[in-house]
């Protein structure tokens, strides 16, 4: 059960100074995703149609826009952690570094685009 000094063992961090952070964040976002994604799936199923007007009317409400932004944050963080594990399993060396950089760029870029789009609809109503 561990190496190093007693105080180091008590803190449970090891030389990586990180411990179970990745594992725990994955579980926390998994729990949040259950609630947020079930809400999203039900909202999609109950939408009167997928015409532009109906989608805008739905997303312009704070009761849809705020959970949608929270969903983007939680789900995207969750998939970033998950794809990191996939990359670590199948790539080594420089390719692993390049894949991790690409993953971070993909996650941040798509999350920024999604959140900006939600806020634009929520704050300006229906754009023409």
């Amino acid at each position, binding site marked *: 059960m561990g190496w190093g000094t007693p105080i180091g063992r008590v803190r449970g961090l090891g030389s990586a100074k990180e411990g179970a952070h990745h594992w725990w964040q994955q579980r926390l976002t998994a729990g949040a995703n*259950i609630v947020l994604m079930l809400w999203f799936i039900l909202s999609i*199923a109950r939408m009167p149609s997928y015409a532009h007007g109906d989608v805008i009317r739905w*997303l312009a409400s704070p009761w849809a826009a705020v959970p949608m932004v929270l969903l983007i944050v939680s789900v995207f963080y969750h998939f970033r952690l998950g794809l990191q594990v996939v990359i670590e399993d199948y790539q080594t060396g420089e390719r692993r570094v390049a894949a991790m950089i690409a993953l971070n760029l993909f996650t941040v870029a798509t999350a920024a*685009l999604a959140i900006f789009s939600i806020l634009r609809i929520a704050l300006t109503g229906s754009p*023409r």
Partner: protein
Amino acid sequence: MATARNPARPLAPHLQIWKWGPHMLVSILHRATGSGMATVGTILLVWWLAAAASGRDAYASFLSWFTGDWAALGYILGIGLSWAFFQHLGNGVRHLFMDLGANFELKRNRASSIAAIVFGVVATAAFWAYIMWGR
């Protein structure tokens, strides 16, 4: 780092070596559905949101890829992604129980693996039945 790797070392047993069982199927499906949603699902979700925020014309051109002549593509992606979500959800909940140290007994673990597969298919069918006929 990479040069220190000895290619002559034996490989860990993998997909083509272990005897298949339901627990193994849900394990690899969890990774496959998660990776699929994270890539294809993310691009579609963001495209949908950005098109809706860009206005009527951009949204119409988004929809045109998944309706009319392209309806088959819409159904393949829609049914595929919704099944991927329910499969990932069912097995994800199973994993949360295993994180607590429960459900490692062989029979129960096997039963919960089968339950996750059944849940994925049944929930997907119920979701689409509601969208087609329920509202």
